[in-house]
């Protein structure tokens, strides 16, 4: 198993390097550079040249790339044109929020999806299964931005159970217990909104896997041993059915980190997705570049996580 993880990690490294090259090239292709946003348009050509030389913009591309990577490794992602501060600072607060939101959404997703999928698959074609399947079709058909609005309206405005925007109540002292509770409280409603919609895929996946697995020969073997139905489901069917979901886990995380844009927007939740959208709108290219890189790394790590989890649950995947 360790051998497998190490080998898988070794493959990850060149992937990240390749990604950084891609992002660098894309950044170079974008119009303007670090200087154009900062300077007074009336500046003379000579002064401009001096500044360019000072910032290293006249160096050959590989030196620029090396400088950029050196900065990256040290946590220096450049300056935001919009906020006039370090990109790292801009992102890090948003990243915390997004990670919190993702974890909340994931926990709710699996808390809801696994029992529903299990029931639906075990008692397939029963009225209960029809109800659950019906819900999944509704979930597929409902756009998340409409659903989130409705949820916000009911639980946020009408019932007033949850805060309606932001990631923390104003005036909280960071580091205190109340601060963290408030953060959690703010992430609950958007998290549940995401979960209620994103469970549908997992439920259907799990259901069809269970329906499939329960007809396999080794299930008959288990029954022939005298295992009770509960045991057959818990020991034999469940684990074999959960493989594709385990394989999907890493991707799920990736898509949550990169793709909660709508929900963040509706709930006014300052996360990465919202930042990405705003930065594109305001031509804040250094932030866009940093986020692109970050999203790419999230994808690579998500795939890595998926493979490792799959290797842990399925012995056939492990490389000997």
């Amino acid at each position, binding site marked *: 198993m360790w051998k497998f993880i190490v080998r898988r990690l070794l493959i990850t490294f060149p992937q990240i390097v390749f990604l950084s090259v891609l992002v660098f090239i894309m950044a170079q292709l974008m119009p303007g550079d670090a200087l154009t946003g900062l300077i007074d348009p009336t500046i003379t050509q000579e002064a401009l040249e001096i500044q360019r030389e000072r910032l290293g913009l006249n160096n050959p591309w590989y030196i620029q790339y090396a400088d950029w990577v050196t900065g990256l490794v040290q946590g220096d992602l450049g300056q935001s044109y919009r906020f006039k501060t370090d990109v790292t600072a801009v992102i890090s607060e948003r990243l915390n929020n997004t990670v919190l939101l993702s974890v909340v959404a994931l926990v709710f997703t699996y808390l809801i999806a696994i029992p529903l999928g299990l029931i639906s698959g075990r008692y397939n074609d029963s009225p209960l299964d029809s109800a659950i399947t019906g819900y999944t079709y509704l979930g597929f058909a409902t756009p998340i931005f409409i659903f989130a609005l409705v949820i916000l309206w009911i639980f946020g405005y009408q019932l007033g159970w949850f805060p309606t925007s932001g990631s923390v109540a104003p005036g909280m002292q960071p580091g205190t217990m109340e601060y963290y509770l408030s953060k959690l409280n703010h992430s609950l409603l958007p998290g549940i909104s995401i979960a209620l919609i994103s469970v549908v895929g997992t439920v259907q996946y799990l259901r069809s896997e269970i329906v499939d697995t329960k007809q396999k020969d080794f299930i008959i073997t*288990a029954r022939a041993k*005298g295992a009770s139905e509960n045991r057959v489901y818990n020991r034999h069917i469940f684990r074999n059915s959960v493989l594709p979901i385990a394989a999907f886990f890493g991707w799920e995380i990736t898509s949550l980190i990169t793709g909660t844009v709508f929900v963040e927007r509706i709930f006014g939740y300052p996360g990465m997705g919202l930042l990405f959208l705003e930065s594109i709108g305001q031509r804040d290219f250094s932030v866009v570049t940093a986020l692109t890189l970050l999203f790419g790394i999230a994808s690579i790590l998500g795939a890595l996580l998926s493979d490792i989890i799959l290797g842990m649950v399925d*012995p056939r995947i492990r490389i000997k």
Partner: protein
Amino acid sequence: MSNELLKIKNLKTSFRIDDEYYAAVDDVTLTLNKNEILGIVGESGSGKSALAFSIMRLHTRAKIEGEISLNNQNIVKMPKSKLNKIRGDEMAMIFQDPLTALNPLMPIGRQIEENLFLHNKKLGQQGRKKRTIELLNLVGIPRPERVYEQFPHELSGGMRQRVIIAIAIANDPELLIADEPTTALDVTIQAQILDLIQELKQKIHAGIILITHDLGVVAEMADRVAVMYAGQIVEIAPVDKLFANPLHPYTRSLLNSVPTEGQDRLHVIQGVVPTLKNLPRTGCRFAERIPWVDASHHEENPDLHEVEPGHFVRCTCYKHFYFPDNKEEQENGVS
């Protein structure tokens, strides 16, 4: 009488297709004694496996009527909880396809131990492991300590079939059903597995039902043979009698279609086994595949007749059956 292990009476197993029930096993009556091997032969679709699954009650959606009693306990009416005590303990089954009959995510050792755990609570974890290694040894698996930790995909087909046998015999079952245990294996491995089953019979003294479509296997292994066609037993007899004096047209056709040396063409049985939906429900079910035998020779409601002690044949048509001398002309004349 006390020697009788399994008694099946008027067993009918039906499946629902489009809101109607169709019997895949129809009116099967047989007995199995302790320490006896009963071979069941027939073409694919003749109901052999459906019979075996009925005895174990492994069908999930079937209607089972009649009586199956193992040591005088009626399996058909038994509640699930009681059934689970018997399955894997008093009766066990060896499956057809070793490549799919093992859980791919569970180490071999744990799959065997599960059976011990379910029926022998007194055995501790150490005891279970010891017994599992012992079983792996018994079924002829080299380096059992290593295999104990391995997963099914790391073993060959023959080895996996041995593991399946080890699971089946873990609790010394009194009834062992082997459902085509060698079909999925190549010839040399087949012989080894059959030897193993023969050997185990001596050791655990179980009554064995051996389902196969290989007549050679039956001749070598079985004490008695039942021939099934279209869900019914058409002939049942001690093995030597069946091979020396086969009576039912189907049995004779089957034996006739076994290739022999120096034979330049294969004999085939006309037509195909009818599908479940199209089974003839009245009269002699084999009649349509021997159309040259006059209809008047078949019984209206064919029953098993005892022609000599222990030798039963269904329908009276066997008295008038002959192989058409010139097969080709006959076939052309018919269809």
